[in-house]
């Protein structure tokens, strides 16, 4: 009798597990790997909000293939040591139909091996290093939405040319952080600026987060510099702006390119007319962006200025749309549909083309994604390129 009871309980449990497993299989599942803690968490959390906004919208509209879309969001801390196990778990345990997120290039490079082993469909959020592009050479299921690093620099050069032709600026001082982010290709950056008609009388490295720029700015001040271009991180934004004032260094434009800006920076008078580059700002005049801002505010009650928010939103909505068009979650058919994407998104027109260094990879946005804004009246006002500009470039840093 006891044996029978045990058998019945085991059978019941198996049946429940089986039912649960069936229910799980019925849903369309997507794994999202994001840096929700650590230094890149500002971007990761913004992307998470964008993904969640898209998830709500998709499920309210009937889900994917008439089934509920389920996402598995995991915190990779922007660390390969966490990112690789998360990626493997998505494939082997959660058995997702696609993987997205993946912000840092270090993780992007680290998952090349597991990706080639399991061959999942990947819609990559960040990972701009060409090392990632090279690593995925020959891979058929990678959609890389974010521009590559060389696209980012192309945008910088195009903006600088706009500044030169529009204002007559001819000299640039460059400050760059001495890690891989700031120093990779810095020589080429200098050469390209010179090729485009600029004189670069001062170029110097710094340690990010050191907080003391007075000596470097003192040296830069000795040259008649029109533009101060700095490549670093959010922690460097305030010291550079404040200490420029302190020592009386007044280039006509300060242009920085951190991935994110400090909290409260835009409202600080010291930031007025400081220029930065972004994939998006909430002031973007694009209709899809205005729609996104409205939905975002309705859901979260506030507004993010991080471009990773609309990027996350764009990825999930385009992925869901491709699955719906394919009529299946089969990765080959979804890949074929996603490759045909031609849509207006909050960050601009999304069309995939073969990636420059690895043509098997589908590349979404390029240098056209980037816009330059200036901090003005506590906001980020787009000033370049013309089709998104909400105001003129303020050409004398006050």
């Amino acid at each position, binding site marked *: 009798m006891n044996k029978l009871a045990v058998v019945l309980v085991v059978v019941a449990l198996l049946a429940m597990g089986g039912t649960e497993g069936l229910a799980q299989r019925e849903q369309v599942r997507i794994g999202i790997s994001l840096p929700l803690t650590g230094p890149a*968490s500002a971007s990761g959390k913004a992307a998470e909000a964008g993904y969640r906004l898209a998830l709500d919208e998709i499920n309210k509209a009937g889900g994917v293939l008439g089934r509920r879309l389920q996402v598995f969001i995991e915190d990779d801390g922007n660390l390969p040591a966490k990112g690789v196990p998360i990626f493997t778990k998505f494939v082997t345990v959660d058995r997702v139909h696609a993987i997205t997120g993946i912000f840092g290039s270090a993780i992007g490079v680290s998952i090349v091996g597991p990706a080639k082993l399991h061959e999942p469909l990947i819609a990559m959020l960040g990972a701009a290093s060409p090392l990632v592009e090279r690593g995925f050479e020959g891979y058929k299921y990678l959609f890389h939405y974010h521009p590559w690093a060389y696209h980012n620099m192309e945008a910088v050069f195009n903006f600088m040319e706009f500044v030169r032709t529009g204002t007559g600026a001819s000299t640039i001082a460059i400050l760059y952080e001495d890690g891989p982010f700031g120093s990779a290709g810095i020589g080429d950056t200098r050469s390209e600026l010179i090729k485009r008609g600029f004189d670069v009388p001062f170029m110097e490295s710094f340690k990010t*987060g*050191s907080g*003391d720029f007075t000596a470097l700015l003192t040296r830069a001040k000795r040259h008649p510099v029109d533009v101060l271009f700095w490549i670093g991180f959010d*922690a460097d934004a305030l010291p550079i702006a404040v200490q420029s004032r302190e020592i009386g260094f007044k280039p006509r434009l300060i242009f920085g390119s951190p991935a994110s800006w400090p909290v409260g920076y835009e409202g600080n*008078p010291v930031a007025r007319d400081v220029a930065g580059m972004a994939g998006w700002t909430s002031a973007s005049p694009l209709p899809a962006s205005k729609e996104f801002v409205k939905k975002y505010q309705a859901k979260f009650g506030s507004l993010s200025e991080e471009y990773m928010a609309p990027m996350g939103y764009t990825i999930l909505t385009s992925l869901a749309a491709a699955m719906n068009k394919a009529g299946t979650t089969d990765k080959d058919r979804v890949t074929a549909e996603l490759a045909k994407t031609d849509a207006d998104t909050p960050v601009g027109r999304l069309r995939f083309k073969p990636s420059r260094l690895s043509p098997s990879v589908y590349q979404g946005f390029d240098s056209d994604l980037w816009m330059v804004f200036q901090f003005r009246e506590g906001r980020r006002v787009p000033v370049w390129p013309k089709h998104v500009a909400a105001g003129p470039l303020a050409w004398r840093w006050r």
Partner: protein
Amino acid sequence: MMDLFLQTLANALIQSGTYALASSGLALAVGVLHIVNFAHGEFLMVGAFVAYWLSVLAGIDPIVSLVPAGAVMFAASGVIYQASIRRVLLAPELNALLLTFGIGITLQNLAVLVFGATPRVVHTAYQLTAVTLGPVSVGVAPLITLIVSVALLAGMYAVLYRTGVGKSIRAVAQNRTGAHLVGLDVDRIYLLTFGIASALAAIAGAMVLVRIGASPHMGFGFVLKAFAIIVMAGLGNLTGVLWASLVLATAEAFVRTYVPGGGGAAEAVFFLLIFFTLVWRSWRTA
């Protein structure tokens, strides 16, 4: 050329105020408690965040906030001392070192969880103001930091050498057992000293907030430089902290200004100063 030299000297003098403020608490902790407090940088970070939130929520200027920031860290350090530090004071020094390292990591990660990793900045009227003397221009905010730093160090010196409490602290620093035998409450003096040292770190945090903002990871760089300064000054030598800060700040400023590629290399200057100081000391005593 002379303008550049004078401005570099001014930059060094101004930066030395920040360094002295960040190092004085650590000098006290090492000198009296013989604790190499690796959490000192995170105490500084706590002070910066206290001042930040007081500025954002109540509109209190960070200079005024240095009093509540110091008070908050003084109270918090009492809890930390009673709960952890006190228990390893008699153990080998490595225990205290690892313990404070753990406290620092915990505080840093708590700050990331609660506030996020993105730096936060405040604005004040004097943030945009500079004082110009001939070819030299210095910001008002770091000038105030320098003045506060000198005043605090003078105040500490007065407390240590002109008051009964100071005498007790010096007695405990010199000989714990002897101080205990003559009836001093050693545990209480340790608690008080650790509190003052921690409060000084928090005050330094409130002062640097205006120039560099507040972020969970801001403390580490300061604590490394503070170690270099107290090594140069002599462990526990409070009066030496000022000149040692000036030496470090001057060396960094001159490397940044006159050495090609010095912007990145300046951050290694404190390693060299530690190295040369230790070699020189060992050579002198050999």
